[in-house]
Every structure is written in C-alpha cells, then in structure tokens.
C-alpha cells in the first residue's frame, strides 16, 4: 500500500522550474533513498512532500488524501521532516527540543500534559537519548545531536519521516549510528523513512528502494541493488566505479575515476 503518492508535480522556485512532471509512490513501511547530483532537486522534492514548498501543478497525496486538505497540525501529526543542519537557540536542552515535537498536539486552549510527557520519554528511549536529556543541544557531538532531532521528529508520532542528508558533517562512526537508528525505527515501528542521501554505500546498505533524480526529473526508481550499476553511475554522476560484494553480502561501490564527456 502506498502511503504517499506524488502525482505529476511541477515545482518552481523564483520562476525557475526545479521539478518537472514528477511522479513517485512511496510504499508504507519502506526505506526509500533519493539520490542525484547537487542541484538536481532532491531537497526540493523532500520539502514539497512535507508541504514546506507548494507545487505549481500536480498533487501530493497522503494515504489517498491531498496533503493540502490537512490542517498544518494534522499534517505534522502524520509526517515529520528534518532539514539539513537545522538551527536551535544555544540554551535549548535535548528535552526542550523533543518537547517541541509535541507542538502539533497542543494548542493554547488544550493539550494533554501527561500524554506529552509519556511520548517525550518514549521518543528519548527510542533514540537512546534518556541519559542526555538534560544536556544542551550545542554541547552534544554531531551524532548525538542528530539523534536528538530524530527524537523530536518521533515525538510528533509521524507515520513518515523525511530526512535531508542526515549524515552530513558526521564522522563514519556517527554516520553508521544514525543510519542504524533509522533502520531500527523502520523495522520496529514500521516508520516509513524517506531520505536524501549523498553516500551511495549508505543507500545500498540501508534502503530497499531508491529514486534517482537528474535535472528535476526522476530517471530511475526501483530496488536499490538493481538500480545502482555501472551505467547509472556513468549517466548520472559521470564516475566510473567498481561495484563489489561487501562482507555482509551487500553491494558496495568504490568510485575509481571521472568520466570525461
């Protein structure tokens, strides 16, 4: 069953077409990666799905309902987005941040404080951040901070989590930590994860399906292991790469050289 259907969307930013007549379906409970060269429209696609950017034509449907027909709060209860390198005030603690994730469930005249506390505790537990909940966000390492943001997104109790390059600026250990956390959330909670990634090895290891974007259009969608091959790397990224089997039975790639046009 599809949880999100992107139907023939065209997105323009300052009169420039960024995405053109794009179609994509996201299956409930999958991990889908979006890859493509810089400036191809990956982040724009993510923001359009999250309703941060409006599309000029076409529609995005969540479980068959046009996303525009949800209220802002209703939508935030269904879908959460983590943008690249989000900002926060210097005196915000992990707990404060995760509590903000309960905003879609609160308003100035209503809200369930006990329920909120439980959900915050749950989100902290899921991400392994209970011990660090009193820490200031700025004092955390990059990986811990990313986990704190993921905990905030979880506190929204979304069905879909969108992430824009969640491993940028992290060292390989923290990259792995974040990717494994996302895999765990996907498997244990059935959370649908859609992320923009640069590291093709991460997509091979952690995502079942992949959508490849080039110049505002989706050129391939499918099983990750099938889609990533010599021709694709050549056509999309202009690199020649070795593809081999890693010790865990998954494919891995090593870029060898640029292909001159």
């Amino acid at each position: 069953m599809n949880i999100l259907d992107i139907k023939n969307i065209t997105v323009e930013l300052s009169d420039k077409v960024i995405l053109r007549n794009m179609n994509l379906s996201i299956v409930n409970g999958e991990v889908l990666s979006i890859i493509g060269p810089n400036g191809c429209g990956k982040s724009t696609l993510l923001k359009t799905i999250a309703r941060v950017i409006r599309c000029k034509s076409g529609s995005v449907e969540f479980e068959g309902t046009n996303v525009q027909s949800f209220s802002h709060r209703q939508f935030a209860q269904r879908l959460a987005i983590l943008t690249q390198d989000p900002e926060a005030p210097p005196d915000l603690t992990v707990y404060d941040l995760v509590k903000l994730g309960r905003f879609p469930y609160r308003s100035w005249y209503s809200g369930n404080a006990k329920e909120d506390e439980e959900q915050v505790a749950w989100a902290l537990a899921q991400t392994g951040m209970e011990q660090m909940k009193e820490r200031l966000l700025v004092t955390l390492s990059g990986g811990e901070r990313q986990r704190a943001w993921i905990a905030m997104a979880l506190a929204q109790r979304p069905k879909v989590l969108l992430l824009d390059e969640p491993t940028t600026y992290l060292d390989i250990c923290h990259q792995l930590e974040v990717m494994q956390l996302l895999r765990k959330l996907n498997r244990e909670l059935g959370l649908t994860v859609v992320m923009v990634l640069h590291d093709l090895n991460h997509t091979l290891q952690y995502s079942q399906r992949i959508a490849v974007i080039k110049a505002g259009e989706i050129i391939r969608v499918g099983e990750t292991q099938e889609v990533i091959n010599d021709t694709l790397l050549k056509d999309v990224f202009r690199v020649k790469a070795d593809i081999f089997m890693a010790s865990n039975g998954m494919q891995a790639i090593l870029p060898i050289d640029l292909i001159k046009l």
Partner: protein
Amino acid sequence: MKSNADDMVGAAGHYGISRNIWRGGVLVFFAFLASCGLFLSLTQGTMNISIIDIINILQSPINSSNSQIIWNIRMPRTIVGALVGVNLALSGAILQAIMRNPLADPHIIGISSGAGLAGVTIMILFPAMEYLITPVAFVGAMGAAVCIYIIAWKNGIKPVRVILAGVAVSAFLGSGISGLMIFYSDRVHGALLWMVGGLAARSWPQVTIIWPYALVGFILALLGAQYLNILQLGDEMASGLGINVEAVRIALTAVAALLAASAVSVVGLLGFVGLIVPHAARLLIGSDYRFLLPASALLGIGVVTLSDTFARVIFSPIELPVGIIMAFIGAPFFLFLLRREL
C-alpha cells in the same frame, strides 16, 4: 572560539528543576528592579515630598499642590513610562524571534521612522494641531510597517528582505525628517525633543491611549510564546512542526507593530529599549519565550522608570529627555553584549 553555549551554561545552564529555580529567581530580580523603578519614579523629583506625605496622599487624595504633583504628574508619568517600557521590550523580543535576528527591534519594521516623520511633520508644518500628534504618529508608524511588509513580500516573507526593506524605507523617511528640520530650522526644538523621546508632561490622557495596547499586546505575545520558540528553529522546521509560518509571522509582526507604535506615538522615538532589554533579559533567563516575554516586560518597566527618574533628578531642576539617558547607558551596554556574544 568560546561558544555561546559556555556562556549560557554559566548564566542559566543549571538544568531540570534548578533551571526553573534560576528562571524564577531572575523573574523575581526583574520584578524587584521594576518595583524600585516605580517607587523611585513616584517618590523622587524636583519637589521634595516626603514618603510619609506621599503615602497619605495616595490613601486620601486631598486638594493640595503636593497631591496634584503626585496624582496628576508623577503617577501618570510613571505609568506611561512603565507601559512604554513593556511595549517596546515586548515588541523587540517578538521581532528578534520572528526575524531570527538578534539586532531586530521596532526600528527595523519602520516604526520609528514612520512615527518620526509623521510627528515631525505635525510639529513643524501644523504646530496648531499638536494635539493630533499621537494619532498621526501612530498612523505613520503602522503605515511604514505595512509599507515595508508589502515591499518585502515576494511569495512570502523572508526575514532578510524585511530587514533590507526596513533599512531602505527608514532611510527614505529619515531624509524627509532631515529635510523638514533643515527647511524650518527655526521650529526644530519641539521636533528634536520628540526625536529623542521623553516622558515630560505625559499624563492621564497618554495613559488612556497606551494601556489597552499594552494589555492586549502582552496577552497576545504570551499566547504566541510557543510559536516564537518554534520559529527559532527556522522556517522549514517550524512548518514541519505544524506552524503556518507566513500567517504566524504576519500576526506576530502586527502585534509587535501595534505595541511599538502605541509607545512611540505617546513618548517619541525612544531608542534602545526594544533592542537592549530583550537582549539583556535573554542573557539571564535564556531564550524560552514563555519566560523571556514576562522577563522582558518587567525589565522594560525597570529600565524606563529608573532612567526617567535619573533623567529628572540628575540635573534637577533641569530635566533631560529619558531617551538621552537610555542611549547613553544603552549604547555602551550594547557594545558589552556584542563583545560577549561575538
């Protein structure tokens, strides 16, 4: 680089329950400052009236000159000063969050230049209609704010476009103010006082004008506190958390504009309160707007009433406009903050 975080840990970085105790302590301290300001503003002045006399006068108004001074001069002036402090401080605090810029204050949305040009025009060109100065300045302030918003609008509002439009419109209106002052240099005295901002001769009519804005503005600002907290995470995250960013930004800018416009139309262009007070409050209490807004309001009361008392007493019987005192203290303090933060 010494990070901001270390400073925050030093100031307010005690966590959990103790962090709330710290915040409570800061609020009590600001409330104490505000009380001192109100008390001194009421008891100090050119006329020496003993505290016992003042207490008697407050309990039973009598028809003496001292009673007149307390009830019709010092009391309303103190109230106007306090409310102006509240309005400008809240306005600045709100704008700093929605523009996500620590330098934001009521100036950047054109409040000062709009009120300034309107006020100076009345004073210089239509001195006979000086009784209209407050409503006209209010219209000028709101007009400039709306104008800047329209100029900055392009598929929505980006804070940086508001700031740039604000600088441009303020410069444009400022040229009008300067032009008037040069062409009518014989009439500039009142205009100059207005440009600096002062509380002299402000009485009950001004209290009547400003208190509804202060009350409604304070309530709306507090209702918006959690929105302001989330807007600090950036537009995209705020949108993802279920905020209609454009609508909230317009609504809160309107609240900030009304707060500031009602203040400057009554006392003239008081600088620095809207910039300095929220900054100082933030340094001590942190950036959670549920605490920062009341803290800014209390500190605003304290700063304006204390500065005004100072302005009245220091060269007594000559009285300085409170705006001069505040800029004189405010500017060095602002530099101190900048050195601390950058």
